[in-house]
């Protein structure tokens, strides 16, 4: 790791802790930071502030950390493996695919067991990924950033139309899912978190294990082969990790677009081209980013709360445009 990396990691962790505390402190009732700390260390049931912190705000902050980390690492892997600066679970349609399957299963087949939600999300993400890459690879010129983004946009539009259709035909079952579909960290039950956690941890570990080979892949398939990397196998495993991470994020928070696009680029600016550094830094940065975004989502139009997914899109879309301009 570079010198900047060694200095950066403590700074990043400090930022994470700070954002975490800030995220818990703000809201309808502002809780001072030292009370937040007290609530976490010495919980007092009779103190109203402590109850607010542990029961309402702490879960949400944890979701933000997990989802942010998962999406950022998924984006980093996709960008590295495909050498495509625009690759991201949201832009390439994986988020929509995952949420489409979840919505259909919950709305039509009344699947309510939280154990199945991450599994269904993974299924949706995997099928969508196969479709998008299949289409892009079959296009003349192969899977360029353009064909991948176009195929992703097409699949997203297609599935979104079906989600709207299902919603129209059965308002009651689908109304519950409306807010979730815009990407939100509010009001998710901890059961889902419990079932999503294994996917998330598995995906993250796999990503860390693959990081060395991904660094080689990011220099080109030929270089990677020359360096002794089993390209097909690494790509397959990286895809598995991306799908697991996407599934966990979607199960917890719904489709949260552009998080996976922005963070890896920032991480690359900080630590350079080594994925052994990019993956962990992306995870921490993603967590910080989503915490801050979620604070903004709750504060900007207070007392109305904007869906966190809307804010990530507001911030991420201009970045996407800038990338198109700067990198392509």
């Amino acid at each position, binding site marked *: 790791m570079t010198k900047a990396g060694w200095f950066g990691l403590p700074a990043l962790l400090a930022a994470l802790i700070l954002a975490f505390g800030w995220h818990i402190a703000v809201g309808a009732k502002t809780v001072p930071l030292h009370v937040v700390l007290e609530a976490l260390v010495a919980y007092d049931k009779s103190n109203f502030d402590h109850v607010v912190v542990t029961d309402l705000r702490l879960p949400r902050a944890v979701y933000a950390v997990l989802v942010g980390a998962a999406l950022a690492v998924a984006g980093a892997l996709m960008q590295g493996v495909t050498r495509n600066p625009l690759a991201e679970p949201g832009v390439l349609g994986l988020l929509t695919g995952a949420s489409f399957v979840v919505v259909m299963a919950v709305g039509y087949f009344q699947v309510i067991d939280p154990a199945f939600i991450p599994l269904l999300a993974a299924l949706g993400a995997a099928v969508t990924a196969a479709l998008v890459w299949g289409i892009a690879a079959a296009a003349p010129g192969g899977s360029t950033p353009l064909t991948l983004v176009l195929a992703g946009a097409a699949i997203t539009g297609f599935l*979104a139309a079906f989600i709207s259709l299902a919603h129209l035909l059965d308002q009651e079952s689908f109304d519950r899912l409306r807010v979730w579909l815009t990407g939100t960290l509010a009001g998710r039950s901890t059961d889902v978190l419990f079932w999503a956690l294994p996917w998330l941890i598995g995906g993250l570990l796999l990503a860390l294990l693959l990081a060395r080979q991904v660094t080689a892949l990011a220099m080109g398939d030929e270089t990677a082969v020359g360096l002794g990397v089993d390209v097909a196998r690494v790509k397959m495993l990286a895809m598995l990790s991306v799908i697991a991470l996407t599934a966990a994020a979607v199960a917890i928070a719904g489709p949260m677009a552009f998080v996976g696009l922005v963070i890896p680029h920032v991480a690359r600016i900080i630590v350079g081209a080594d994925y052994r550094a990019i993956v962990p830094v992306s995870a921490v940065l993603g967590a910080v980013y989503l915490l801050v975004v979620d604070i903004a989502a709750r504060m900007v139009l207070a007392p109305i709360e904007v869906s966190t997914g*809307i804010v990530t899109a507001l911030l991420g879309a201009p970045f996407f445009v800038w990338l198109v301009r700067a990198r*392509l």
Partner: protein
Amino acid sequence: MSVLVLSPWNGRISLRLHRHALVVAALLLVALIGVSVASLMSGSYPLSLRGVWQTLTGNPPEEIAQTVLWEFRFPRTIVSAVAGALFGLSGAILQYVTRNPLADPSLVGVSQGAGLAVVSAIVLFPEMNLVWRPLLAFAGALIVAALIQSIAMQRTGGATMRFILTGIGVAAFIAAITNTMLTYGDIDQAQAALGWLAGSIHAVGWPEVWSLTLCLAILTPGLIWSARYLSALRLGPEVSIGLGVPIRAARIGMITLSVALAAFAVAAVGPLGFVGLVAPHLARRLAYSGVGQHLLLTALTGALMVGLADFIGRIAFAPVQIPAGILTAILGVPVFLLLILKTQSTRQL
């Protein structure tokens, strides 16, 4: 290839007409009339063909037929056809000017810009007169188009694929702002705005018929005038300059025209996706022709598409009405994917 050449007024205007294309245009017109009549006949109050005819000619079989047909079904049928034609034409012009087979007002954010302007109006000024909607939509769409142009064009003076990618990013951004508006807005207004955003035609009445007819009347001369520039522009900037086309002015004029067509259609029926993308390609597949006739065929194809989408959406899951926008997306995406697979110009990136 049999070609008719008409040159009235001593050849001041001459038209090259491909006979095959004329036949196809006639067939499309017949199909459009067929769909329109079917659309007039069906619904929760079914009418026979004879009943429709009698009502339209002024002696309805029942009093209620008069209301149902004149107040609801007839305006709706007309609006869906005209809006479809406008979307198709808008897409065709955009494709010619940007020389990009994938250009579509709903893909590059132009429709979303118009949508955002109208949704903001619905949410922030609910009492606003409907008359202003088309103009607002036009303003919103124009701003977005200018934005995309300025972002995409600066570097290499016209990289077409960057235009599309920039448009996709801008469209996502605008959709997010629109969503914020909906969260911020009152629930009733948000519901109204949502229905409109899905591209539903069921709420239209005579005001929309008149506004669309007016738009068509204003923009058609521009279209006819533009055909010659389009036929030059599609050959590329070098050839266009050689042919004496003021390309900068022509480009800006054409894109404004395309944006206007899309914006007025969006103001009436909401942002229907993929019509502007699919209609020009279908028209090209149906018959080989020059630019002018291709525009005509595109308009007819677009009208047929939206008319059909509205008709299917009305009867497929009755009594639930499926907004035409959902159906155009479901039908349009497979065609879009086919285009991605076949388009050679993806190599340009």
